């Protein structure tokens, strides 16, 4: 296949041809090509459509700042919208499709918008589409939404992996152009640890796009050699395809390495991309500069690009957009494009807005000329030049390079809200104000544009940084290199133009900016938001300055008075997958498994997430078709005989020290000082604001040793709170804390036969009859022939019950042992559902009741808050609003018609009162079907509930269409006197 626009030379590998497909057509290019360079080589200039007017567009740049040549890359689940053709590396079989057009790129029906553009000016939508009211969502908005957007997402899970990593260095060097390479060499030689990161796959920056020499070598060769030298240094890490996306506090930078994007798909096990968090002591910003366009009429046709991009395509990729080209410039740099392309045999005409433009023998220069129009619907065919004498010339060209000067890439200097400064001589913003601490800009990023001075600037920056690090640096004598001064005469746009594009992707024209001014959207932030200038995927890299310049012109200000814009992370748009890394799908968060998990899996248990834990919810048996059957069985069997439940997930905190009891007196509202060794007590913990924080038990194993339990959900928070109380409030308390949640497998053994079962397991020297081991006793014991264990006689179910703990590794075996030894009692394992049923039957509060707004008073434990001692929360719990006469109180609910449910989340109304928020009396917190009572029950909060027992109230849940009567009863449905648990 011929490539009509391919030139000689370049940094492509002609020995490695690659086939690829664009919009269904097959083309070929070479290794080293980007999709854009390969398409241009095949004389394809039309690559995309603009956002609003659907104007035909080709590449404007040759880099990551590309606003126009956006395509959908790859197919299927790897399909990736808005990919810049200018950075997509070519690989064999690459498939790409144009986007935001219908039915085809050449014939796009939505281009009708372009015809209607005079109606669709900036902000037109704020002024219309208001009638009738309902039409916005139903008619106008769907049309607008369908037309908007760029590419499409696949609607399938991304099949690739992403990884994360953490790197530490003395110096992070951002950008591997001449300044970055010089800085890296200098820093590398000093022995400092250096990371050199560049977004390109080929390091060298502009050196790979220019014909400059460094000494006797081409810039590209010098770059390659320097990179090779750096790669031999063990203290230097060279990272290509790695974009520094953000500068964060204290020298932290985000770097995204595109490990596999240049392959059809990642190698097995390898990630697509890695997000590196780099901890740097210093950073050097040598990210170069971005050329900016001049704004003129119809400046957006395929074939019109930045002059430097045209030069990159020619020198690096050996490609020209056509055989006859023009360059429109306001500075000397534009002439480089003419020189380079002319040398490669392409005819070039330069239109230089400066009347004193330099002239050359090898190409024509029209000094003082302006481009006043262009032609070519799907690709540039002619440009119209107006000369100083106001004569109009039409040039037949396929490509136009535009050079309006260069903008230093200051973005990263702004990520911590530093503002760049205007440099009059360069007509550009340069790094200024408060830079991120430790960041030193160098080279073109600092407004130093010549190669010679970029090298020196990089070296200087490195020397400065090494000085801070206390390292010695040697001055490297770089060979002579290009040292042309940046000669520019500001020229931003050709006046009077009808439609001249400022933000090409978002279709913001010079007229839109004038209109914004007319409507008082003058501040740069108003301008941006009203017109969408700079909000495109190039983040304004190619549009902001021209927009500011035009606003400056119409408002009679200078550019810095109009304002600067703010750059925010990321530097270039970044795959969301990279930020998520490995934390996705079932690995989104770690899983915590209980000691009996593997055994429970064997039993076919159904699991439920409780925080990070997976807990057995119930254990279905053969023939059970509904979860309620399993749960009812587990409850009944436990209450009738014995059941076992894994309660390891409850937090356990070891509290030791001479002041352990005094410490618990502070963190619990009730008293612990007098708790006897060998006894356990329920404790209610308040936040300092007097609201219940958590509850649990504290078992006194020794005078100076307690084991405290917390709820599963609050284990981590309670530990943190206790450390706060210990370290910050009572630093002289002699108390030591450590979590032991995971060290012990702990099982509740509940039911009338629980003692008998445990007696078969607990070693006989530890009697556990009611006398030796009464309700609330605790002890360190041994089981099964000497295994250390802990036994607590506590009950959540209301039955005679124990909790037994063994070292976690034996937890699995203990459960099997309990099941085997319990066969004679028909022992049953029960899950969290049965646990929940039994605690509701017993009226025990849990997470639904301790919801962060309820006090001890609400819970019916108001008298537990000791007034004799200081404890966290006791003072603020006395506030009037927390002690009102009609305060919510925890009570039970029983349906009047026993067939009715008592759904949690339902609200309560006094009989006969209106059903609305004003008359709300409370709500049901937890509910279940009680197999023991044979009907549904609930517990919840009711105003003055403790005095309303026996009252019939109306239970309403309009959300779930429930409305019936319930009776207010005690929350203790089963064994209210507590005879069973003391048996």
């Amino acid at each position: 296949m011929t490539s009509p626009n391919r030139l000689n030379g370049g940094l492509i590998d002609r020995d490695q041809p690659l086939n690829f497909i664009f919009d269904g057509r097959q083309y070929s290019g070479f290794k080293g090509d980007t999709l854009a360079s390969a398409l241009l080589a095949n004389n394809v200039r039309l690559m995309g459509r603009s956002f609003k007017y659907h104007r035909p567009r080709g590449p404007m740049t040759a880099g990551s700042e590309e606003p126009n040549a956006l395509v959908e890359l790859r197919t299927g689940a790897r399909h990736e919208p808005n990919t810049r053709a200018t950075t997509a590396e070519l690989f064999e079989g690459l498939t790409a499709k144009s986007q935001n057009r219908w039915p085809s790129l050449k014939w796009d029906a939505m281009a009708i918008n372009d015809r209607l553009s005079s109606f669709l000016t900036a902000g037109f939508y704020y002024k219309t589409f208001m009638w009738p009211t309902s039409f916005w969502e139903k008619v106008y908005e769907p049309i607008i939404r369908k037309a908007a957007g760029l590419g499409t997402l696949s609607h399938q899970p991304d099949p690739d992996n992403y990884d994360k990593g953490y790197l530490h260095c003395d110096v992070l060097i951002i950008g591997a152009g001449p300044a970055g390479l010089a800085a890296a060499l200098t820093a590398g030689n000093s022995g400092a640890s250096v990371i050199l990161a560049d977004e390109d796959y080929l390091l060298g920056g502009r050196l790979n796009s220019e014909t400059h020499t460094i000494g006797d070598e081409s810039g590209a060769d010098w770059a390659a050699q320097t990179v090779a030298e750096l790669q031999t240094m063990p203290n230097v890490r060279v990272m290509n395809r790695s974009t520094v996306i953000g500068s964060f506090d204290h020298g932290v930078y985000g770097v995204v390495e595109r490990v596999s994007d240049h392959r059809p798909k990642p190698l097995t096990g390898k990630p697509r991309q890695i997000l590196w968090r780099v901890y740097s002591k210093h950073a050097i910003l040598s990210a170069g500069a971005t050329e900016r366009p001049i704004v003129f009429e119809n400046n957006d046709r395929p074939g019109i690009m930045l002059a430097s991009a045209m030069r990159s395509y020619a020198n690096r990729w050996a490609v020209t957009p056509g055989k006859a080209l023009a360059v429109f410039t306001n500075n000397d740099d534009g002439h480089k494009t003419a020189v380079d392309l002319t040398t490669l045999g392409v005819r070039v005409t330069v239109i230089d807005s400066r009347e004193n433009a330099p002239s050359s023998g090898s190409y024509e220069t029209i000094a003082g000329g302006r481009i006043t129009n262009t032609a070519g619907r799907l690709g540039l065919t002619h440009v119209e030049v107006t000369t100083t004498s106001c004569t109009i010339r039409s040039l037949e060209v396929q490509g136009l390079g535009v050079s309006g000067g260069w903008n230093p890439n200051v973005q990263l200097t702004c990520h911590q809200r530093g503002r760049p400064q205007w440099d009059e001589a360069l007509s550009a913003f340069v790094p200024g104000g408060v830079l991120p601490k430790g960041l030193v800009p160098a080279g073109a990023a600092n407004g130093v544009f010549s190669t010679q001075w970029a090298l020196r600037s990089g070296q200087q920056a490195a020397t400065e940084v090494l000085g801070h690090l206390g390292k010695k640096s040697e001055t490297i004598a770089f060979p002579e290199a290009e040292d042309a001064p940046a000669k520019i005469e500001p020229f931003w746009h050709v006046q009077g133009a009808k439609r001249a594009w400022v933000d090409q992707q978002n279709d913001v024209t010079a007229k839109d900016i004038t209109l914004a001014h007319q409507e008082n959207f003058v501040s740069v932030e108003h301008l941006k938001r009203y017109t969408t200038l700079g909000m495109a995927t190039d983040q304004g890299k190619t549009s902001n300055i021209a927009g500011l310049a035009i606003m400056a012109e119409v408002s009679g200000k200078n550019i810095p008075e109009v304002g600067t814009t703010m750059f925010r992370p990321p530097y270039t748009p970044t795959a969301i997958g990279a930020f998520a890394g490995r934390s996705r799908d079932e690995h989104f968060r770690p899983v915590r498994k209980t000691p009996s998990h593997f055994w429970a899996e064997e039993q076919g248990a159904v699991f439920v997430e409780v925080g990070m834990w997976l807990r057995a919810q119930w254990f279905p048996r053969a023939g059970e078709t509904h979860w309620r059957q399993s749960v009812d069985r587990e409850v009944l069997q436990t209450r009738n005989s014995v059941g076992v439940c894994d309660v390891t997930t409850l937090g356990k905190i070891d509290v030791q020290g001479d002041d352990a009891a005094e410490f618990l007196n502070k963190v619990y509202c009730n008293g612990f000082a007098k708790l006897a060794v060998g006894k356990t007590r329920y404790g209610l913990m308040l936040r300092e604001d007097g609201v219940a924080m958590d509850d649990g038990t504290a078992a006194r194993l020794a005078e100076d040793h307690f084991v405290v339990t917390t709820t599963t959900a609050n284990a981590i928070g309670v530990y943190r709170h206790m450390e706060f109380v210990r370290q910050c409030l009572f630093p002289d308390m002699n108390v030591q804390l450590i979590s032991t949640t995971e060290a012990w497998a702990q099982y509740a053994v509940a039911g009338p036969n629980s003692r008998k079962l445990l007696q078969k397991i607990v070693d006989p020297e530890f009697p556990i009859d009611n006398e030796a081991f009464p309700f609330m006793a605790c002890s360190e014991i041994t089981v099964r022939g000497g295994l250390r264990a802990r036994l607590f006689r506590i009950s959540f179910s209301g039955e005679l019950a124990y909790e037994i703990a063994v070292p976690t590794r034996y937890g699995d075996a203990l459960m099997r042992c309990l099941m085997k030894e319990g066969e004679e009692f028909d022992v049953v394992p029960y899950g969290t559902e049965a646990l929940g049923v039994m605690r509701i039957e017993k009226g025990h509060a849990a997470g639904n009741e301790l919801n962060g707004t309820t006090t001890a008073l609400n819970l019916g434990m108001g008298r537990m808050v000791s007034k004799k001692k200081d404890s966290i929360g006791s003072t603020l719990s006395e506030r009037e609003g927390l002690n009102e006469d009609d305060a919510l109180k925890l009570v039970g609910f029983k349906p009047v018609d026993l067939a009715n449910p008592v759904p949690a989340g339902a609200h309560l109304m006094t009989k006969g009162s209106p059903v609305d928020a004003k008359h709300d009396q409370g709500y049901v917190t937890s509910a279940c079907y009680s197999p023991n009572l044979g009907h549904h029950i609930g517990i919840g909060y009711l105003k003055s509930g403790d005095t309303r027992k026996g009252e019939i109230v109306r239970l309403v849940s309009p959300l779930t269409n429930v409305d019936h009567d319930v009776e207010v009863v005690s929350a203790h449905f089963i064994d209210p006197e507590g005879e069973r648990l003391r048996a």
Partner: protein
Amino acid sequence: MRYSGFRVIKEALTGHRGWGPAWRDIDPKSSYDYIIIGGGGHGLATAYYLAKEFGKSRVAVLEKDWIGGGNVGRNTTIIRSNYLLDGNEPFYEFSLKLWEGLEQELNYNAMVSQRGILNLIHSDAQRDAFIRRGNAMILNGADAELLSTEQILKSYPFLNVDNARFPIMGGLAQHRGGTVRHDAVAWGYARGADQRGVDIIQNCEVTGFKIENGRCLGVDTTRGFIGAQKVGACVAGSSSRLMAKASMRLPIETHVLQAFVSEGIKPLLPGVITFGAGHFYCSQSDKGGLVFGGDIDGYNSYAQRGNLPVIEDVCEGGMAILPMLGRARLLRSWGGVMDMSMDGSPIIDRTHVDGLYFNGGWCYGGFKATPASGFAYAHLLATDTPHQTATAYRFDRFATGRMIDEKGMGNQPNLH
């Protein structure tokens, strides 16, 4: 000037020469009846309603920078009234009703789009809590619907239900919730207020209060002293800094919240969706960008920028429910400063200084409150009595123990 489709066509045919400024740029007068400090959404809305509903004409809005540059200009554009507590729900429902008529009210298309908001449910306990909430909403006259996973998948077929770490067990939907073009809210209120004679004064920072004998007589500004009968502070994240000038300490901390937008993509998400087991919520703008966010960074900050761990955390949440997002790109992040109150609910109240009023503590829920906040604040300023939907938003609720704590997190602002 009245906006209309007809007007747009007429202007298009005559070169758009007829459009005037959306609001006037003027110098401050020496005194006003009412000064609103802060030209954000709430401040502009307050001025608008003072003029429109209470007939006040000598009103000025003082903005230290440019209007709409605070949180109304940087948020995730969501409106909803899915609150639980009686102190909040009537207020937010009032706000939602005002949103529903806003475009006609202002003759400005702020693109109020009631595309629905959906809170996903991932556990039984969460379902219980959402049922209680949904019922509270309905009892307060709002709309709510409990959806099954199957119903949700009809609108969001690509949600991760196959290998999710936390299963999706349904959701609580409010169909009247949705999104609004946030900047347009500020501009629409500014234009409406301006048309009713309110002076909107940009680049005018308040540097102090003139307080004599316990009464506020006006404010010192970078453009000189301006006298006032009544001064209303309405500066969100800057509340503590401003009120310190009146020797007040507030039950407020200022925190940074980051938000994010992706590159534009073709329509994907029909409404707003909230992940209940991670820190992620998302909607899609009319332009096509996915607008998403999560938790605040969690430390006091006025820096208007956050850090990398939270960006990662939010994107993890996104990937967890929408695993296709891996191949969408994050385009831009931004950070706003939030006036996080001690119970997560706002304050609209008088202060200990006569003639000085306060509106703040919006946490990161201020945008959706804009119309009601403006209305209720105007009511308080004009009548010295709280609006009926805002009676609970008092300073003294912390002393009396009548907190309005939706999340049940207590006096720790970064958890609200």
